[in-house]
């Protein structure tokens, strides 16, 4: 039965339909969590005793940074599935995720920079995490560029899957090397984002926002995947039926 479900999900037609019905629910849930997170984070949570109000950027920055990694890992997983079992939907997931992941990474960088200015007095500091995030952005951009450069869509998707897998092996190494480089060159003088403990009143909005970002990713990736699917299968019977029924 499980197998059957899997096959149904993997068929483009069912996926398109089920994704279409899931999107509003996910989007609604995302909106709820975002509002709750914003209310908690911007209004209820007290100011930080060291950073004052500026720490509230954390509720954007940290979930975005988490998501930037999470999306990449999802892409690598989907890429592996797509390469090994030749499941079209997995390939589609990889390439639909890339722009979203790049957006999260960019957001993490920008918000990190905006947070860093009042804290460190500079827009950019070669902090280990920011640097690793920057390299991650390059990896995402490489994936998007490669996908754009290859004309044949299936070839492009599979090339991107391989690149993602190569990248996912490298990410831990890059993180490790950058951390190491950072301790070597900067010493412990730079203020770090991470603190030993976070107060519960700040943790709750952080988690709320993290869930909101995850839900956001879920429904946006489904939206993108539906587009990609339509484009690829524009000759298939089910697409024609879909268009004619409108």
């Amino acid at each position: 039965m499980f197998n059957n479900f899997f096959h149904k999900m993997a068929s483009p037609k069912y996926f398109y339909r089920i994704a279409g019905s899931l999107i509003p629910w996910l989007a609604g849930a995302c909106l709820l969590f975002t509002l709750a997170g914003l209310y908690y984070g911007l209004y209820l949570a007290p100011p930080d005793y060291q950073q004052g109000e500026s720490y509230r950027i954390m509720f954007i920055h940290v979930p975005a940074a988490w998501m930037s990694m999470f999306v990449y890992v999802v892409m690598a997983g989907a890429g592996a599935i797509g390469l090994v079992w030749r499941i079209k939907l997995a390939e589609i997931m990889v390439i639909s995720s890339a722009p979203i992941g790049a957006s999260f990474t960019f957001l993490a960088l920008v918000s990190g920079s905006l947070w860093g200015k009042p804290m460190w007095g500079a827009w950019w500091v070669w902090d280990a995490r920011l640097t690793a995030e920057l390299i991650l952005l390059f990896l995402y951009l490489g994936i998007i560029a490669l996908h754009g450069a290859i004309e044949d869509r299936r070839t492009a998707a599979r090339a991107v899957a391989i690149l993602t897998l190569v990248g996912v092996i490298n990410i831990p190494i890059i993180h490790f090397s950058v951390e190491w480089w950072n301790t070597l060159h900067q010493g412990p003088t730079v203020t770090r984002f991470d603190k030993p403990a976070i107060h519960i009143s700040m943790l709750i909005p952080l988690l709320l926002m993290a869930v909101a970002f995850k839900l956001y990713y879920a429904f946006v990736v489904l939206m993108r995947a539906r587009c990609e699917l339509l484009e690829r299968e524009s000759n298939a019977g089910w697409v024609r039926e879909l268009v004619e029924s409108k």
Partner: protein
Amino acid sequence: MKCDSLTRAFTLLIRRDLILAMRHRAEMANPLLFFILVTSLFPLGIGANPNLLQAVGPGIIWVAALLAALLSLDSVFRSDFEDGTLEQYLLSSHPVSVLVLAKVLAHWLITGLPLLLVSPLLGVLLDLPAAGIKVLFVTLLLGTPVLSLIGSVCVALTVGLRKGGMILSLLVLPLYVPLLIFASSAVDTAAAGLPVTAHLSLIAALLVLALSLSPFATAAALRVSLS
């Protein structure tokens, strides 16, 4: 018997690439000249203060090596792709990953090895102390094969593209970051007179990892690019 013919194909492929390189000596020298030129431009740009050069020297040499490797990468599969021999490798009765390894090894002999050999000279140009030059040589010895191995994956992904060059640099350079960090800080540390075993073993670990994984990734990428 089968193993025997595989070894034969491996050595023949390396020999063939070396012969081809010898028949195109001028092209072969390009990355090397680039490496030397870029490195010798830096003192002109930032001033020839020995202390300054010593501080930035390892980084400069390694960045130049990265760029020279990037410049030479396109030639790994490009001509084979254009004249159709690349298809013949994929349709060979030997594992493609082994053939790829032969290609990469040949590429390293043609482009990486010359860089390695002139690097002490550049170390002298940039006022590195003797200990630093020695470690620079070792890091390049361990590191340049990694450059070729990682590069081969990316070049295999872009080989079918008309404008592959620009994308190639976007794909390759982020992946070179760890090597750059480990290698240049190894030279720094050595120049300061500290032990560098940890650095060198990290680079060696990178080499082992690249050696064991990248031929498979390159083979898969070539299959995708040619399909």
